[in-house]
């Protein structure tokens, strides 16, 4: 590779870091800080070595725990931190990495900004290199915060965990780089990479949950991981086994994946036109059948909804198959049992497993709903809404099409994940599907919040992502942190009844639905009154 193709990389990297000067440090601090502070919070929960050993044993025995967090490889404080926060932090790093890379590659080309940059003394491979360097800065920062924060628990383990999380972030950064070469649309590039992250998580969860916990196996707690886990980059991260006799060679897999994907992306970027992808554009119809704003909204969102539907159905099928083994063994540690119950379990562990999965689907569905609600916000800021609204089309009717897809679509994908769970679990189809749909009011409440923000303070509309992310964090890692109930109650998901289970309380379900309706109404009232953003 001649250096000419890299001309301008330094300047472009500085531009990328300047544009992300808030996002990269904040996201790195949150991701790294979460892990680093984990030691303190877990120490409060399991003070003595005996407590930790018991907790580790019973968590390992529980299949929903293994699915969510992976096996416990070591019952030291560091080992528990790696187990509890490793996967979550890895997913966070992966998502941030994919956003950073697509933002500085395909999005720049799609908006036409790259054209002006490339007209300068900028090499063909410089934009991609700059984007990957920006992602490297982010992932290095995460690794640094994790390593420094956990050094007290053992320097080698801290370093291994930091490298595992940051390295996996780079794997998905390079996946995004590859996707950005293939498609012409930044949205699709993010969608494809996001699907890859989701698939990696599901593979790891399925692999880990499938291996029954056996403390004697392999000389460590938690047994090994199955083949499925080894197919997933997120599975590699946990198999570095930070604080549990680090297996440094696993990082070679991560490095190889990064190098391979980088090479492929470089090869593609060297032989394509600026702005073009590898999937050719076909001509469209000379006359169109779109007659209403609703039809346009459907046309714009149907691809995304199809992707989410498939993902949720497949996810449901995979996790439903694991439910049977969930009740294998229960340790008799009282504290561990308390944690299970806070995680969403009633007495029966199968129910607890299903409830955990159903709630996970719910929290992820909120991401779909927020993205879908904010679609017209994107139409507005890109200037496409203005000529549309210059026609005989009221703002409410324009928004209604998108909101119908957001609210109806979240119902659809939850119904599909519920169907998937019920089908492959094979019993209790009704309760499982019902439990899945019972997540809807919380999803709708978050979607309603997005409508409110967009309708009244459009500048702050994207804060809805932050709210959905916070709820996901509270639901995923909150229960084990012994957070005060007030904090857990911030998330609408914290108010839902644990289903399937013996007790169904309708009050929170109805209250959240009413809240969602009120938020939507207030948001639409704001939309009617405010200036359109241009």
């Amino acid at each position, binding site marked *: 590779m001649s250096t000419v193709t890299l001309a301008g990389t330094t300047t472009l990297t500085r531009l990328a870091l300047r544009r992300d000067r808030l996002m990269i440090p904040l996201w790195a601090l949150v991701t790294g800080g979460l892990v680093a502070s984990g030691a303190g919070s877990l120490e409060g929960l399991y003070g003595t070595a005996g407590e930790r050993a018991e907790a580790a044993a019973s968590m390992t025995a529980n299949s929903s725990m293994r699915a969510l967090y992976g096996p416990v490889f070591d019952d030291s404080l560091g080992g528990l931190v790696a187990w509890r926060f490793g996967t979550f932090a890895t997913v966070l790093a992966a998502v941030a990495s994919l956003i950073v890379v697509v933002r500085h590659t395909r999005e720049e080309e799609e908006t036409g900004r790259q054209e002006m940059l490339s007209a300068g003394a900028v090499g063909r491979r410089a934009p991609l290199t700059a984007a990957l360097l920006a992602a490297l800065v982010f992932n290095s920062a995460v690794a640094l915060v994790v390593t420094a924060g956990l050094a007290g628990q053992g320097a080698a383990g801290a370093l291994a965990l930091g490298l595992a999380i940051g390295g996996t972030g780079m794997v998905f950064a390079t996946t995004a780089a590859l996707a950005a070469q293939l498609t012409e649309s930044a949205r699709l590039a993010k969608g494809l990479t996001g699907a890859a992250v989701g698939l990696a998580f599901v593979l790891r969860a399925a692999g880990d949950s499938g291996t029954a916990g056996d403390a004697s196996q392999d000389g460590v707690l938690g047994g090994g991981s199955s083949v499925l886990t080894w197919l997933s980059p997120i599975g590699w991260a946990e198999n570095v086994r930070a604080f549990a006799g680090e297996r440094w060679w696993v990082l070679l897999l991560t490095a190889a994946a990064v190098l391979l994907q980088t090479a492929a992306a470089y090869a593609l970027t060297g032989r394509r036109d600026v702005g073009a992808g590898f999937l050719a554009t076909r001509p469209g119809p000379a006359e*169109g*059948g*779109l007659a209403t704003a609703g039809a346009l909204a459907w046309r714009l969102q149907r691809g995304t909804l199809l992707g989410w539907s498939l993902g949720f159905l497949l996810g449901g099928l995979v996790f439903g198959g694991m439910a049977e083994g969930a009740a294998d063994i229960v340790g008799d540690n009282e504290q561990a049992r308390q944690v299970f119950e806070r995680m969403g379990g009633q007495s029966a562990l199968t129910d607890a497993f299903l409830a955990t999965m159903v709630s996970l689907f719910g929290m992820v569905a909120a991401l779909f709903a927020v993205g879908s609600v904010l679609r017209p916000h994107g139409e507005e800021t890109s*200037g496409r809404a203005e*000529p549309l609204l*210059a026609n005989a089309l009221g703002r409410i009717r324009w928004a209604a099409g998108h909101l119908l897809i957001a609210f109806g679509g979240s119902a659809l994908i939850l119904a599909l994940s519920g169907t998937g769970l019920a089908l492959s679990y094979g019993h209790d189809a009704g309760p499982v599907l019902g439990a899945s749909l019972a997540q809807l009011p919380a999803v709708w409440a978050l979607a309603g919040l997005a409508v409110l923000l967009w309708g009244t303070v459009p500048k702050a509309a994207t804060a809805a992502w932050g709210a959905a992310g916070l709820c996901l964090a509270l639901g995923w890692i909150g229960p084990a942190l012994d957070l005060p109930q007030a904090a857990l109650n911030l998330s609408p998901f914290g108010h839902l009844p644990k289903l399937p289970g013996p007790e169904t309380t309708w009050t929170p379900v109805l209250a959240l639905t009413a809240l969602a309706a009120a938020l939507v109404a207030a948001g639409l009232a704001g939309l009617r*009154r405010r*200036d359109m953003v241009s």
Partner: protein
Amino acid sequence: MTKAISIAGLHKSFGRTHALDGLDLAVDTGEVHGFLGPNGAGKSTTIRVLLGLLRADSGGVSLLGRDPWQDAVELHRRIAYVPGDVTLWRNLSGGEVIDLYGRLRGGLDRAKRAELIERFELDPTKKGRTYSKGNRQKVALVAAFASDVDLYVLDEPTSGLDPLMEEVFQSCVQEARDRGRTVLLSSHILSEVETFCDRVSIVRKGRTVESGSLTELRHLTRTSVTAELAAAPNGLAHLPGVHDLDVQGLRVRLQVDTDKLDAVLRALTASGVRSLTSTPPTLEELFLRHYEDEHLANGVAAS
């Protein structure tokens, strides 16, 4: 004659920026009205208020006799809008977008649509992302002129069009005027304005500084005069309305306010005229004067 648009004392602020500061605008039904001003003068903000996309802070706005904010949807059935920077959906073809806009407005004329696509040489099967800037403008222009509406609101509609297409656009405006339709045309292309604008309004810093027919506006500007005289000129410098006087021997060059031309000619003939060239003000000069005044004013304010 009824007013298609009447705006009086319109104010609009965005935070601390006063985009519109008491703007007035009156457009008669059936006229083509040029809407001019330097970049950032408030033209597009005014148009967005007229379209009900922005809410006026204060001032009276009436569009086709109704309130553009309250009655936006009803009014928009009678309006076609072309923005200066058209953004399309990347995966929708031009033809689909034209039909969507047409249906949302309440129907378009199929024959007219086909004719316009022909005249503008637009390929309606291409997807939004593959159109050039000029072709994206054409999509919006075809969508607008395929509907027979009462008012066309055109915000720098020809940016990116080639000269041939510019001509097609001009004939479309002409046809609209022949049908008695009203056109509000914001433009920087002065030949375009000169060709078919019945009246123009010039805005600056959110205010209307000049409004009237081109003849009326010309009257306010300067004529440049070059003359060769038989004897040395006398007393020219003291005449009212004379600017940039340059005397070199028997050769005289000067600028004079057009309404003060008479006295200057008298003074010149008194010295005996050998040759005389008098150039009427061009539209460029007219606008440059208005635009430059702003820079001068800024310069004074700054110093």
